[in-house]
């Protein structure tokens, strides 16, 4: 059923709003940006054909405000809404409200989103579709636990069914520890959550996180666009993503793609989505479906030469997905975040005082940053994504290391040097990937002493002589190059 679209409202901010606006324009749509009081001067606002204020800085009152966003769509005459990622992107009630307002939601249908959003329900759909999940049973009974452990093999993970965030979790290495661990976990679960139910499941010691990109249309076609390896994570936040997954056999890839397609068909999935799996050895286990565009989608776009946002728009307009081209080469993405890797990654804010954006073949920088842009504390700290393509992984990696060498950002503390060191490391080069990569190799990262020396030299040159500096400031000279310190140094020397 063809459904011509004319105007798209982008219910998001930052780099993803800008990225969606670019594709929507290419697709022939007028674009509407929405913005909070903290984002009046943001790049996505000026990039769109029109922009509508939707509320105060607090996300709950603006980017998460369903009524306000739908009112903006009505007012602007938008006939479609793209939610981006984060914010309202996976809220079934938002998709429902959009649809109730006779506006096309660029994403899966609300009931599909609701079913996949519930982890227990999603696991049930996976099991019914024959997709492997992490083997486990719900029991606090020692006999059943022992039998399961013998079948699945040690180590075993014991966790509270009601738990989260690692509380009440225990890794059991051998049979002798099982009974005391089970008793302690039951006690803890009851005390901490008022719910003594216990899950006993296979413990994956060094899993990789590998996900399959899927696209489905309302005519029942579902395709997969390969995989992304997102094993490099810090506190469950992805930092580096790549495709193809290094060392993944064609046979495993084919099996995982088949599983993702089965799952998507079983859920009657439409639009772009991602099936996430944990992989250990020759086994893979379904984790969850992200029913939206992922942050790391450019990695897939670079290899398949496609535009996933355009595909989403085509599907939303009632179009069909077509068979994908064969993927080529390799692509790696790193996330540049406003955080301080030298001080426990605490969030950073500030005004961008200088920005150098890398260039060259195969280099893509998706970002909403510009000189003068404000990074506020209101939203997540993603400043941009640097993605490099290469004929093979080494070329992509080399380009990314070089591109990060060209990157410079003053005014907002960020993790660019940290990700550069990871990507340049021999552990990353050798693809020693697991979700424990950071803990294993980068838990005690420090900037190189040579770079700190260079920074001190640069600061000394920029600072110049303090007395001259004070004089310059008193004279109110506002048009000074940052290296005027050097000139003042010359003055200083001639004075001696």
């Amino acid at each position, binding site marked *: 059923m063809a459904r011509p679209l004319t105007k798209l409202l982008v219910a998001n901010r930052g780099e993803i709003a800008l990225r969606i606006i670019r594709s929507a324009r290419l697709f022939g749509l007028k674009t509407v940006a929405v913005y909070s009081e903290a984002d009046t001067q943001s790049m996505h606002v000026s990039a769109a054909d029109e922009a509508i204020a939707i509320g105060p800085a607090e996300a709950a009152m603006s980017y998460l405000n369903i009524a306000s966003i739908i009112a903006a769509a009505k007012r602007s005459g938008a006939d479609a809404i793209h939610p981006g990622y984060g914010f309202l992107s996976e809220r079934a009630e938002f998709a429902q409200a959009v649809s109730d307002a006779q506006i096309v939601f660029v994403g899966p249908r609300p009931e599909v989103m609701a079913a996949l959003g519930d982890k227990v329900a999603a696991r049930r759909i996976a099991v019914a579709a024959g997709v492997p999940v992490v083997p486990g049973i719900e029991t606090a009974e020692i006999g059943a636990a022992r039998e399961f452990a013998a079948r699945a093999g040690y180590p075993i993970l014991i966790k509270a069914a009601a738990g989260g965030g690692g509380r009440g979790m225990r890794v059991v290495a051998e049979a002798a520890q099982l009974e005391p661990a089970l008793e302690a976990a039951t006690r803890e679960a009851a005390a901490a959550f008022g719910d003594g139910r216990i899950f006993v499941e296979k413990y994956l010691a060094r899993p990789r996180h590998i996900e399959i990109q899927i696209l489905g249309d309302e005519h029942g076609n579902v395709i997969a666009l390969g995989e992304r390896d997102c094993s490099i994570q810090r506190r469950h936040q992805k930092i580096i993503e790549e495709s193809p997954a290094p060392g993944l056999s064609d046979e495993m890839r084919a099996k995982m793609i088949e599983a993702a397609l089965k799952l998507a068909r079983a859920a009657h999935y439409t639009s772009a989505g991602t099936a996430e799996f944990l992989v250990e050895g020759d086994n893979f286990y379904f984790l969850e479906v992200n029913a939206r565009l992922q942050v790391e989608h450019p990695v897939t776009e670079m290899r398949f030469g496609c535009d996933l946002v355009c595909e989403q728009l085509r599907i939303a307009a009632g179009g069909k997905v077509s068979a994908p081209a064969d993927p080529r080469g390799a692509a790696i993405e790193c996330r540049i975040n406003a955080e301080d890797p030298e001080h426990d990654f605490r969030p950073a804010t500030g005004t961008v005082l200088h920005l150098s954006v890398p260039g060259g073949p195969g280099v893509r920088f998706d970002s909403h940053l510009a000189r003068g842009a404000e990074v506020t504390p209101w939203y997540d700290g993603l400043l941009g994504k640097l993605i490099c393509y290469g004929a093979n992984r080494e070329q992509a990696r080399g380009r990314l290391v070089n591109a990060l*060498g060209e990157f410079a950002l003053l*005014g907002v503390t960020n993790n660019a040097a940290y990700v550069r060191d990871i990507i340049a490391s021999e552990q990353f080069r050798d693809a020693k990937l697991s979700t424990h990569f950071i803990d294993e190799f980068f838990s005690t990262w420090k900037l190189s002493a040579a770079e700190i020396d260079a920074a001190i*030299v640069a600061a000394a040159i920029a600072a110049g002589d303090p007395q001259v500096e004070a004089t310059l400031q008193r004279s109110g000279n506002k048009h000074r190059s940052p290296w005027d310190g050097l000139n003042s140094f010359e003055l200083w020397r001639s004075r001696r």
Partner: protein
Amino acid sequence: MKLVRAGDSHEIDVEVISRDGAIVRIRIGNRELAAEFSPNTDGGGLLVIDGRRYPIFSARRKDSILVSVGPASFEFKPAEVASRRRARGLAATEITAPMPGKILKVLVRDGDLVEAGQPLVVIEAMKMETTLAAESAAMVKQVRVEEGQTVDHGAVVIELSPPPASSGRESAPRAE
């Protein structure tokens, strides 16, 4: 001159010894470095030290000198500025908000004695919680915020005074 890196209490003693064309000789502590510096038209420059090339940029922000060396960025303050916030035996006399945000928890009260590294306040910004801790042993002179209050970048959250038994150490070790 003496510089201090933001978030650090260690003073860096640095001096430009001489400059001959692009060659700048610099002393850092008791080490001497020769650097070749060429400014660029874009406000940045190229620094060469020991044959390694570093693209650098610099900017001012209040009393800070911001510097980037490739993708790494740095904030320095002249030590005189940093030391205004420093009292004998204390790494800092004030705990300030490192970013605008909301005070989630206040973990101490006026008059409390705290150890280096002891959490004082939990602040929420950018959907993340950050704990502000004492950098040295101290006594809480005054808690200046309440739970639930929003604060601006640099706002004084807690004032500290030296612990009563302080022997007046020149610089306390930094917890972290």
